[in-house]
């Protein structure tokens, strides 16, 4: 089954073309987190490289975050639109799952806290544990202030973040203060990992909708 996987949740966007578990092509690029305009050029390049026609795409996998709302929306809309002719399936995969898998595969971590910059002076995070060869989420996505993060984060878990440049000062201070372990650079959700997660028979899939951790409007509506 030819699968196109895309993720634009972080500063590095990623797209991959897979045939089953076999990676046919992948592109990773720095995204300005506002446009997503390189996505389609990269898909064209991959289709050409793999000699696959766009009409042959049978499944679409898309990272649903957490992360950049604009990046998530443009990639999810793209996947859903590409899937419309022929009503092909669109599977949402947590971008955090891909980060946890990468932390396990590349750093050998079995217990991982995936955390990122939620803006508005908050962090988003979730805990994962390796179970039956899969990094399995142990809880729902949560928000915490930097002050409370160290006390909420489970002891013994290693933190992996896609936002190291923005959060390095905080995590370095937190490592000194509370002794938490952190992978000291960005761990990014590559599209090929998303594609493989979706290909796992145990994968149940998520709705292809962004993980919104903030309300659309910070202030309540004025009284009528």
């Amino acid at each position, binding site marked *: 089954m030819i699968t196109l996987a895309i993720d634009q949740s972080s500063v590095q966007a990623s797209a991959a073309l897979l045939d089953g578990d076999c990676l046919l092509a992948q592109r990773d690029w720095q995204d300005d987190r*506002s*446009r*997503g*305009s390189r*996505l*389609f*050029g990269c*898909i*064209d390049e991959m289709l050409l490289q793999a000699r696959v026609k*766009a*009409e042959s*795409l049978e499944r679409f996998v898309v990272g649903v975050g957490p992360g950049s*709302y*604009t990046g998530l*929306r*443009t*990639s*999810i*809309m*793209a*996947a*859903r*639109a*590409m899937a*419309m*002719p*022929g009503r092909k399936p669109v599977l949402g995969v947590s971008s955090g799952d891909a980060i946890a898998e990468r932390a396990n595969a590349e750093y050998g971590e079995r217990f991982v806290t995936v955390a990122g910059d939620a803006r508005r002076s908050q962090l988003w995070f979730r805990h994962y544990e390796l179970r039956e060869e899969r990094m399995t989420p142990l809880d729902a996505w949560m928000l915490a202030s930097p002050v409370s993060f160290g006390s909420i984060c489970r002891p013994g878990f290693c933190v992996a973040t896609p936002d190291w440049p923005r959060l390095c000062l905080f995590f370095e201070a937190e490592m000194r203060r509370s002794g938490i372990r952190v992978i000291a650079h960005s761990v990014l959700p590559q599209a090929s990992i998303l594609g493989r997660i979706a290909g796992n028979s145990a994968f149940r899939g998520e709705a292809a*909708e*962004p993980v*919104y951790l903030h309300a*659309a*409007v910070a202030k309540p*509506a*004025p009284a*009528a």
Partner: protein
Amino acid sequence: MTEAACRAMIILGIETSCDETAAAVTRGREVLSSVVYSQVAAHRPYGGVVPEIASRHHLEHLPGVLEEALLASGLGWGELDAVAVTYGPGLATSLLIGLSAAKGLALRLARPIVAINHLEAHLYSAFLDPSAPGLESVCPALALIVSGGHTCLLRVEGLGKYRLLGWTRDDAAGEAFDKGAALLGLGYPGGPAIDRASAGGNAGAVAFPRGPRPDRRGPETGLGPLDFSFSGLKTSLLNYLKADPVSGRPERLADVAASYQEAIVDALARGVAAAVRRENLRAIVVSGGVSLNRRLRSRLAELAQALGCRLLLARPEYCADNAAMVAALAGAGGGRAGWNDADACPGLSLGEDALD
């Protein structure tokens, strides 16, 4: 391509520039389907469009709107010749969702994208009906585009040939209606609310300002002879209501609402009349959400008759944002065809560098 040569093209149009999620299928100027999901209810509590709410709703509803538009057209995906999409002006994050959908479909179907200027699409909405005259046949014409986000006058020489004659330097006319309605406690959107509240009111009861005085126009202020300004009108209403509140006085409310509406309509009509006379134009083309206003329609009809001009008004269903105008403009040969890597242009203008 000429308007005639493109007549049979089947185009899927997508419009997500503000708070309407829309898709349509056209064959030339024939609208085969037009589906609009309005987000007005979601924005109403805030008295205006909230960009983040708009983006979330576009993503949630556009796939269903696209499916519905195709189903209603009776065609299949493979029968489309091109995908047309609004790329500006508008809210950046909303435009990007429409563009992503268009690019995704275009890639999958191996079809070209036609990138459409939202203002030009509005202008073309007056020509959507196959029984309407062709755009070229009424030129040179004046276009008044008047909506919640835009108010401008354009000289139209033909498809793609426009010159901006004047525009609002602050609030759009629709915005003035929204802000006025909020001050009057009439709710959102303001245009229809003030239109309703004005019924039976005396439009001459309060002498609200009609825009900048002639002595305020010139190089020193940057206000051209055909430019509009509505911010002073809103302030004038605010000051008036402080001195003479209308709450609990429905008859007075009707008078004030009618007077406020008349000030907006009068400012627009004066601009239209001055432009037609100065540019010696043959027709007046009116489009945009505010062109639904009944008083504006009747005033422009009187004006067109007095000026000896033909008046072309967009049909009510095509006045507010819709995708039929996007698709039909592409089908007529408008927009930027084959621009498959089109990016969102939130500040896109129309006619500022054309003709001259």
